[in-house]
């Protein structure tokens, strides 16, 4: 590491403090224990803007008041804030008076009341009364800039935090400031909704009640809620969140900044999908299939006896289908029940990341400081682990070279060729189009490798490439699993006994099948297994036809109702705290009691002592020997006669939870197919036209959208609109 940065000493309000050179005045004042009030200054949004002028301080030698946020500490600087300088205090009072000039007297109506920085700073620094006598400027309000966010332009103090986020952090450029000067307003284009994966962050950023959440609208006041620190378990990133609860129900989910994992940002699914806990069709009591009377609601004890009897009859022929969303403790209880209690050894693990990758473990923040980032795999990172996409954009803004190699990447590659690309890059003489990238990878001293695809062996290929590049301490390799706690579940299954979980592909009858979670119910292999199993035990939050075939259905719990630990994609084990009570027992209590009946002692209480901001465990294991270069993926015929290679991706806004939140409906993937620019013009298909996808006898009609980044001969569709279609389809105009 470079020499410790040179220290400069500055005196603020007659208190001298020494800070590293270049730290902002606001931070150095904080270090000296002095608060300089700010509105528009937010270090996470990039360079300071100096728009709100709230941080005016007096600096010796400079005649006028200066904006402290834009200045950095110089040696020997003497700064006087409003505490000691009458001029600065007068300046701040004037600034607040200007801000409050057109601010509506909305505090009783406004959702931000009680947690509003403008209220707090006006109380501490502002004028006592208002001299405003003229009619205040009004807009019609609230304007729903999206079904999730309500905008109130009267309250907006034009600090531009939201537009800076939209333009410089999420880079979706949809929330902008129109007009000029005092008549500037925040708006999206015409009346199109703010459709982006991270739109919810502007609500957290807004220091006033201008941008408020429609999901949380008028639900609670800050003195009526409790905030529970937990972790979002809806995707493998594991962002740290505050879950706000009122009267035993989750009211909202807020970001809880973990500088290494999420950087204080949340995607819209994690922020707004918590309302599925209140869905009307949620299962609240166990259901049992009784021969003559079909599905009947039964008390928990009877369900326990039924499960006990069903599993005892099945003997050793039991298979467990995990959905990857369970906590490590739940998976541990289930695994020990099946492996030690019943002596069976068969499991369907959604994710089984290769431990070889632990040798190159790094925090997600390391992506931002990387020089070269490589993304391989067919699935877009934005849909699989959205916050990783933010880190990659931060890296690109920091000057890094971010290269995506894949069907929709900068370097085109046929689908399913990720392993071959890793092998090619690791080889001494890579093929022509990868040669320049391979050179950059070897020369860069900090590299980030990201595998975003479904192939479980990706971990080993990535580790092979990382070993070949001899990645040092500053670099990292990240395999994006499909499920939130896939790693934790696999570790728990393997710890419960030896022998790897194998895929029971045979067709002989199965004694019992335990389906854990809604995601497993959607897996076609599990549905097939359920037909062949004599006894099916399911835990599910919502009833659907797949759950209907099982003999005992237990009401599942959401991630906000669980106590336990989850392991995110970096391998960091984080603590899930229970925010609200589940409708009945939670899975851990049920399976612990069931396991005790089979002689396995499982502790129903979680003992994990993981602290607030979990740290990343050290690197472990050695890098595997470089894998032999796999043959390059079969060179699929480019879309000659109108037939294309179909790439499916699992959209972020899909799944049982998102379907039950009406406000998120507009974010769900449109029924459309993305076509490469060249092929679209060759087949004269323009964006928006109806096209028919045909493979064998299955055909579907979707809207077309031209995506110039797609490799020729590749068509991309969201998974939920492409079921039944084979891997290669023929596309014609409808």
């Amino acid at each position, binding site marked *: 590491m470079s020499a410790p940065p040179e220290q400069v000493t500055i005196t603020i309000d007659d208190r001298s403090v020494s800070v590293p050179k270049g730290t902002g005045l606001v931070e150095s004042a904080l270090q000296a224990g002095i608060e300089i009030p700010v509105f528009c200054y937010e270090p996470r949004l990039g360079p300071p803007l100096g728009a709100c002028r709230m941080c005016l301080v007096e600096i010796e030698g400079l005649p006028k008041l200066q904006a402290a946020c834009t200045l950095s500490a110089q040696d020997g600087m003497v700064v006087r804030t409003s505490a000691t300088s009458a001029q600065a205090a007068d300046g701040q009072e004037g600034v607040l008076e200007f801000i409050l000039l057109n601010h509506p007297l909305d505090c009783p109506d406004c959702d931000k009341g009680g947690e509003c920085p403008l209220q707090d700073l006006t109380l501490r620094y502002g004028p006592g009364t208002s001299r405003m006598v003229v009619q205040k400027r009004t807009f019609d309000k609230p304007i729903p800039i999206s079904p999730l966010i309500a905008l109130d332009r009267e309250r907006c103090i034009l600090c531009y935090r939201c537009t800076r986020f939209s333009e410089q952090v999420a880079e979706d450029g949809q*929330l*902008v400031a*129109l*007009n000029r000067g005092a008549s500037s307003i925040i708006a999206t*284009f015409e009346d199109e909704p703010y459709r982006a994966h991270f739109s919810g962050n502007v609500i957290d950023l807004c220091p006033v009640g201008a941008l408020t959440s429609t999901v949380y609208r008028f639900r609670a006041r800050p003195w009526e809620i409790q905030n529970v620190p937990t972790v979002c378990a809806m995707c493998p990133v594991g962002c740290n969140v505050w879950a706000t609860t009122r009267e035993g129900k989750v009211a909202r989910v807020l970001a809880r900044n973990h500088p290494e994992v999420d950087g204080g940002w949340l995607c819209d699914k994690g922020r707004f999908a918590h309302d599925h806990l209140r869905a009307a069709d949620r299962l609240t009591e166990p259901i049992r299939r009784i021969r003559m009377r079909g599905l009947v609601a039964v008390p928990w004890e009877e369900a326990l006896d039924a499960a006990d009897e069903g599993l005892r009859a099945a003997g050793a022929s039991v298979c467990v289908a995990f959905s990857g969303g369970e906590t490590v403790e739940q998976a541990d209880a289930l695994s020990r029940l099946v492996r030690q209690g019943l002596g069976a050894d068969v499991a369907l693990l959604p994710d089984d990341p290769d431990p070889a990758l632990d040798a190159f473990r790094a925090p997600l923040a390391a992506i931002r400081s990387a020089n070269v980032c490589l993304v391989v795999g067919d699935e877009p990172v934005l849909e699989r682990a959205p916050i990783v996409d933010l880190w990659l954009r931060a890296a690109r803004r920091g000057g890094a070279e971010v290269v995506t190699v894949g069907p929709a990447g900068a370097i085109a590659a046929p689908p399913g060729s990720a392993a071959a690309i890793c092998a090619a890059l690791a080889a001494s003489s890579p093929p022509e189009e990868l040669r320049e990238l391979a050179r950059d990878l070897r020369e860069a001293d900090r590299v980030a490798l990201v595998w975003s695809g479904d192939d479980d062996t990706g971990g080993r290929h990535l580790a092979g490439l990382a070993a070949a590049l001899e990645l040092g301490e500053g670099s990292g390799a990240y395999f994006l699993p499909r499920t939130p706690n896939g790693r934790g579940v696999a570790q728990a299954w393997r710890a419960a006994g030896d022998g790897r979980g194998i895929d029971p592909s045979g067709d002989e009858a199965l004694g019992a099948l335990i389906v854990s979670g809604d995601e497993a119910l959607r897996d076609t292999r599990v549905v097939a297994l359920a037909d062949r199993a004599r006894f099916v035990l399911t835990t599910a939050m919502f009833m659907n036809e797949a759950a209907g075939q099982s003999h005992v259905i237990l009401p599942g719990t959401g991630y906000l109702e669980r106590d336990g630990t989850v392991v995110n994609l970096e391998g960091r084990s984080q603590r899930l705290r229970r925010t609200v009570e589940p409708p009945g027992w939670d899975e851990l209590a049920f399976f612990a009691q069931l396991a005790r009946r089979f002689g396995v002692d499982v502790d129903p209480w979680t003992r994990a002592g993981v602290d607030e901001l979990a740290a990343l465990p050290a690197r472990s294991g050695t890098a595997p020997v470089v894998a032999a270069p796999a043959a390059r993926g079969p060179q699929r015929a480019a879309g000659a006669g109108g037939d294309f290679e179909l790439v499916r991706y699992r959209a972020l806004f899909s799944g049982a939870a998102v379907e039950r939140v009406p406000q998120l409906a507009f974010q769900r993937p449109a029924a459309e197919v993305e076509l490469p620019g060249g092929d679209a013009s060759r087949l004269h298909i323009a964006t928006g036209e109806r096209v028919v996808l045909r493979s064998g006898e299955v055909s579907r009609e979707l809207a077309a959208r031209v995506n110039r980044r797609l490799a020729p001969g590749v068509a991309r569709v969201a998974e939920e609109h492409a079921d039944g279609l084979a891997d290669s389809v023929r596309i014609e105009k409808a």
Partner: protein
Amino acid sequence: MSELRDEIHAVARRYPARRSAVIPALRLAQERYGWLPPEAFREVAAALDLTPAYCKSVASFYDMFHLEPVGAHTVEICTNVSCALVGAQRTLEAFERELGIRAGETTRDGAVSLRTIECAGGCGWGPVVAVDHRYREPVRPEDVPAIVGELRRTTGGA
């Protein structure tokens, strides 16, 4: 309409970053549409791989970009300090009487739109009026009928 895209590409090549080419691209679009309808923003955004919202935020900042339909001809009267002192207000009222519209409006047949602008830079020579971006100085109230007549002849409007 694809030539607009090619023109924008041609212009964009002269700039290091695509964001710097937004203003010239918007000017090209305004010349083609007469003003900047939503489709113009979509085309400019598609050509420069930006978002229409960003282009509209740039366009709405500048006075010269019209977000509402304007007449074939534009008459802009400088009402800043120097011109006001030498009677720009009377010239404006003369134009309003002659065209039958108020400042900021367009004649019903869409022929002429009248607007007041800030300093046009001709402070030395009496009220400055920019007719189709060409300066006419000085313009006394009595010269107004001639100018309006000339505008009407060229468009043959009412």
